[in-house]
């Protein structure tokens, strides 16, 4: 592999995968496969979904609204790199210290990982750790996500990561569960390989969250001139949605036609998702089994190829 110890970024070239991690934006800044870019901005922490009617009706959106802000903004607390077993801290990576790495054998490291530590803009704060790893003997980029909660935080609709793909997709296919699924709406889903042409459009008259796919073992996203694959590294799989707009844009839209024109694709990979409810008119939350606890720990792991 070729490792680039830049002044403000870490570059990793591994075969057809090219990755740039930015120290100043705190994350994966560029993700290229076969020379094609997949990121519009650094992946952000995802904590919000456009309120469903039941989220709103049960008062959940109001009680949890700080997570809408946490979904937009976050603090980068720290980062560190481990290259072939050598730990490089923030201080070791920035100029002028990186001058010493010019002739380092680590520039040809076989294993490299970069760990970002974030804190949420909530009070109290919660902690998120994202570790990206690349190995010369494995294709792609591994992502390990850990959310570590704090007592006193209200429940959130989901936690995970959001990738903004700078293009429109032509289709996507996944191994997992049929249709749209949420934790309290899994019973009707069957396991298998599924494919959808184009992006899914909001099927609800009032714009709200949709298109969640639980327990996915792999996902392939196709665009006109590039494609991207996500493979789960856990048995339970990851949860994803591919939407044509951000959670906040959808939150504010009264109808699907109110959304901005579809230009980019919002890929959310969630470690945990709240149920949708609906048992008791629109005034009750989902059963407690399907409500997330923001003081708990949630993890997910997947590989991007």
């Amino acid at each position, binding site marked *: 592999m070729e490792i680039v110890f830049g002044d403000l970024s870490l570059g990793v070239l591994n075969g057809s995968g090219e990755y740039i991690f930015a120290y100043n934006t705190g994350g994966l800044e560029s993700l290229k496969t076969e020379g094609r870019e997949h990121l519009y901005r650094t992946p952000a922490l995802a904590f919000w979904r456009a309120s469903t009617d039941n989220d709103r009706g049960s008062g959940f959106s109001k009680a949890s609204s700080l997570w809408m802000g946490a979904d937009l903004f976050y603090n980068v607390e720290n980062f560190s790199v481990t290259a072939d077993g050598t730990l490089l801290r923030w201080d070791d990576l920035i100029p002028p210290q990186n001058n010493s790495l010019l002739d380092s054998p680590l520039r040809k490291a076989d294993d490299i990982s970069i760990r970002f530590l974030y804190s949420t803009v909530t009070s109290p704060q919660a902690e998120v750790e994202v570790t990206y790893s690349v190995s010369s003997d494995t294709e792609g980029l591994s992502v390990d996500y850990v959310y570590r909660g704090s007592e006193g935080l209200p429940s959130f609709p989901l936690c995970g990561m959001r990738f903004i793909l700078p293009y429109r997709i032509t289709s996507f296919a996944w191994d997992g569960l049929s249709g749209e699924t949420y934790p309290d709406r899994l019973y009707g889903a069957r396991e298998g390989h599924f494919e959808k042409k184009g992006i899914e459009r909001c099927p609800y008259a009032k714009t709200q969250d949709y298109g969640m796919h639980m327990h996915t073992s792999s996902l392939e996203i196709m665009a006109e001139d590039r494609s991207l694959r996500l493979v789960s590294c856990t048995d339970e799989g990851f949860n994803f949605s591919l939407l044509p707009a951000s959670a906040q844009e959808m939150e504010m839209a009264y109808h699907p036609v109110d959304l901005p024109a579809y230009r980019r694709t919002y890929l959310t990979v969630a470690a945990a998702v709240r149920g949708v*409810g609906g048992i008791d008119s629109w005034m009750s939350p989902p059963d407690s089994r399907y409500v997330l606890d923001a003081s708990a720990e949630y993890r997910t792991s997947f590989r991007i190829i």
Partner: protein
Amino acid sequence: MKADLSFLEDLSVVSAGRRPAHSDHIHYRNEKEAEEFSSGFYTSLNGEWEFIYSSSPEEREKDFHKKNFSSSRITKINVPSHIELQGYGQIQYINTMYPWEGHEMLRPPMVSRDNPVGQYIRTFDIPEQMKGERIILRFDGVENAFYVWVNGRFAGFSCDSFSISEFDITKMVKQKDNRLCVEVYKRSKTSWIEDQDFFRFSGIFRPVYLYSLPVCHIDDMWANGDLQRDESGIFSLRLKLSFASEFKGKIEYSLGSFFKRVKEITEKDTEIVFDEEHIPFVKQYHYRTPFLYDLSIKIYDNKKNLVEYVPYRIGFNHIEVENEMVMYNYHRLMICGVNRHEWSPSGGRCISLDDMKKDIAILKDAKVNAVRTCHYPDRFEWYYMCDEAGIYMMAETNMESHGSWQKDSRIEPSWNVPGDNQEWAMLLLDRCRSNFETYKNHTSILFWSLGNESYCGDVIRQMNEFYKKADKTRLVHYEGVFHRPDMKPCVSDVESRMYASPAQVKEYIQKDGRKPFLLCEYMHSMGNSLGGFKDYDDLFDEYLTYAGGFIWDYIDQALYKKDEVTGETYLAYGGDFGEKRSDYEFSCNGIVNAERKEKPAMQEVRAVYGNRLW
């Protein structure tokens, strides 16, 4: 009989000149017509009518029914349709609140001053084959109150938006150029009991017909097939006949290939009760195998000419409560149901037969076995379709008054209607009678329902009593008695609740449990919803007295609208028409969207209902 504007508010006027409600059988001149579903006794009056729109009663043309009336205000309107969807007046969606909330302080039975009037005019000729016969004018749905004139003569008045209204106009018509005038008011006293959770429309929104009666006519029939425990069947038939003149002839009826009976009749035989027939083995009517037998009734004159032919399809079934369980055909009934409003994104509640056929196909595909006609009688064709498809029906009376006692989430019945107010009893009992008399022959109807969310009082007790007396073969349902536990012994054969959680269902069954339990509304399917549905399915295994429920609801109420900026057509819901007040997106709770596209949760419905029953 004189038309008077006071009818709108006067509770003692139930209707004027309206024929008594009767069964919805269609009579034909011969079997060939029946095969083609085209009765020579009927002629349609649908199409383009002349129209004058007034935003208030004062603005209306008071002489519009007179012979030489002319006005530059006359425009055109399509019949059937809602006035508001033809470019007149205000489209409004509102749920529990009355549509005049915040605009006028009213109490029942006061009528809102925001009362647009549609005056409809058309001419018609009596078709050749109907000449000399008695002529009936039939409206299948006019919202909310209307007056009818034929050739300047007042024919009648009705104020029940969802029941069929008929007027005998034999003495008012001539062969050619009859002038039919209909004056439709958006609001009347009955607006207080037609507060269903829907868009508030007005106008002639279901078909209009003329039909004629031959010299001897079956005015009413009640055919019933009662399945016995040993799979035999008891068939009964009762007819009411009317005659235009003296008559000698015979009536011949048969059921499938079981039997044929013949009876000589004269004009004095206005009521015929045939002997009960005991059939050793019948195929039962079940949603899996909706087996129906062909009933054929023929009337011949004394020259052996066929006067009238009435075909009907009747099944054998049996419903009762036994050991706090709802037993259907001697097995426990498990309702996997859905509430259904009539809806089209272009026509509102003016829906086509094609829309209805699609609904049947979607419901069958979703493994739904029962439908609740929330909360009014549907187009009569729907009942025939449910019979054929094997979709059990909870046939609701046209009543909902939740604005009179449900104030947001607070229950405050200080001026609830109908409550104990006897002056409302005639209006409500008339609605029960119309519902029962019209649809009583439909095998798929298992429950009569008194309506929805109207609290409970003595008038509702009387409605319950009406159905119990009129029909021993079916169960009566009403949920609102939940708020008046003291009245439970005299209202509703089942304990019905809405939106009770699985835990609350368990609590009722364990603690009270004197009646079978069903959920007339549950799994509120608004937007992205229907989570936790499987928990209800598990109740079937835990409790024998749990009879299932009806999802709220089948279809989003949304209308096509053009985006003013982009020109793009979208599905608009409450509030998108500038109306105040409104309950906005609360109009969209379907398992299909307004265009009848499945919402994602449909795979859950199919699995949960399918798991149980197929």
